[in-house]
């Protein structure tokens, strides 16, 4: 199955990935070949097979709702591109 340029652009938008005009042809081609390749799955007979939820057949562990981590915002924000007064800065969203 060959994907169209429009489909690939729409996936890129969903994934929030910029793809330049120069790249798009190559991306369409490679993504199409990957989707073709995984299409082999359609040949498998999976009637009566439950989809795997967890490799170990383990339940989700619960814990009591208690605070056990201290606030370390200042340490974490050292890695942020732009912060001010403890807030992460991004371009203006609302005019």
């Amino acid at each position, binding site marked *: 199955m060959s994907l169209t340029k429009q489909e690939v652009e729409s996936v890129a938008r969903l994934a*929030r990935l910029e793809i330049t005009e120069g790249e798009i042809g190559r991306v369409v081609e490679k993504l199409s070949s990957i*989707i073709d*390749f*995984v299409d*082999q799955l359609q040949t498998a007979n999976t009637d009566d097979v439950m989809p795997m939820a967890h490799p170990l057949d383990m339940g989700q562990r619960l814990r009591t709702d208690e605070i056990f981590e201290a606030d370390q915002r200042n340490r*974490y924000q*050292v890695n942020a591109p732009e912060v001010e007064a403890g807030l992460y800065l991004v371009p203006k969203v609302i005019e």
Partner: protein
Amino acid sequence: MHKKTIAELSRSLQAREFSSVELTRHLLSRIDALDGGLNSFITVTAEGALAAAAAADERIARGEGGPLTGIPLAHKDIFCTEGVRTSCGSRMLDNFVSPYDATVVSRLKDAGMVMLGKTNMDEFAMGSSNETSFYGPVHNPWDLKTVPGGSSGGSAAAVAARLAPVATGTDTGGSIRQPAALVGITGVKPTYGRVSRYGMIAFASSLDQAGVLTRTAEDAALVLEAMSGFDPRDSTSSPAPVPCYHGSLQESLEGLRVGVPEEFMDEGLDSENRAAVEAALDVYRALGATVTTVSLPSLALSVPTYYVVAPAEASSNLSRFDGVRFGYRCDDPADLLDLYQRSRGEGFGDEVKRRIMTGTYVLSAGYYDAYYLKAQKVRELIAREFRQAFQHVDVLMGPTTPAPAFELGAKTTDPITMYLNDIYTIAVNLAGLPGVSIPCGLVQGLPVGLQLIGPHFSEARLLNVAHRYQQESDWHQRLPVGY
């Protein structure tokens, strides 16, 4: 010193034949002299290593040293290390200094191990040749024109070149076993949930598992024991107790039932590679094992299954890299959408973008049932076939890779060719099983591996099976020329 195994180094340190500081200095000077041609390290932490070594020496002097105290190691750059850049092989995290340690890192630190640095890897662990790294490819010490495998290629090359006695790795589809095979060392991918994933940068959370790359199974047992076990910070961490892996290494293999999946030995396997695997099976027969043929009919579907499940999980995991809280941010974003799209477009490399796109596509409206749900069903089918096989045999054996190391650039044009390189390793991750690769021969001067696969939580048995082979063979002691 660098030719000694961990077990030997540990005895020497305890006997004060040399100190951890001397050992660490020696390895740092080897990295300095030899890594230029290999590119196995992204970051070398010489200062921190020497301080940790001095502390380890004091601990040994007080008589408080354990079997790993003062032993140097390298961490794959996917593990968060407090105060040290953790890049994951990506431009996206080139400037990221982790504020905390991964559980694997803190446990080995507590055991007294000395971190030499962070090793090179495929970007976000997506690759089988270490060619997708932002920091350039790693070269195989056996032949610098060839790849060391991936994604834990730097860890593998560093251990093979005797720059470190052990390195950590992660294995999502073969990323420990495949590079271990291609550079002639021992690689252990434990059962899913055996080792904590906390602080290990996520690629595909239902497949990712941390493990070790060492020269011998004995060394792997020592390190794995220290890094395994329940961690409340990882929601999929197993509460199963950790057995004493090195205590059962010597157990007899008399009566061991070995199964060889016929799908592993088909026409896709290089003939000399097959001969090496068959010779290893003969060694096991001589040790008292019986060898039978078994079948995993859905094995051929493991690669397409993986290339739905892993990219789907990756597309979700990697959405956190948005240029806002940490990591790369593009210059002069016009608005918030531009900031997201350009930070991610410029920060990620081609293979990572390809997998995010694949994952986004298979999860998108209208395609979920056909791809993701279908893949999870085939995944269950594959796991079921393994369970059936393990009703008749104790361990499965076969090749780790279809052929020895290929040349740099040989498989970079077509992603599918690269993906098929993991045909023998991927199914193990899909089923959450433990797998080990040990060196079993040289093909045209390059190492190849024997893969051992066991039921869930059979690490002790697999290490025992690997160790007994290494007492009968010397492939794991072969050294690439010049190292």
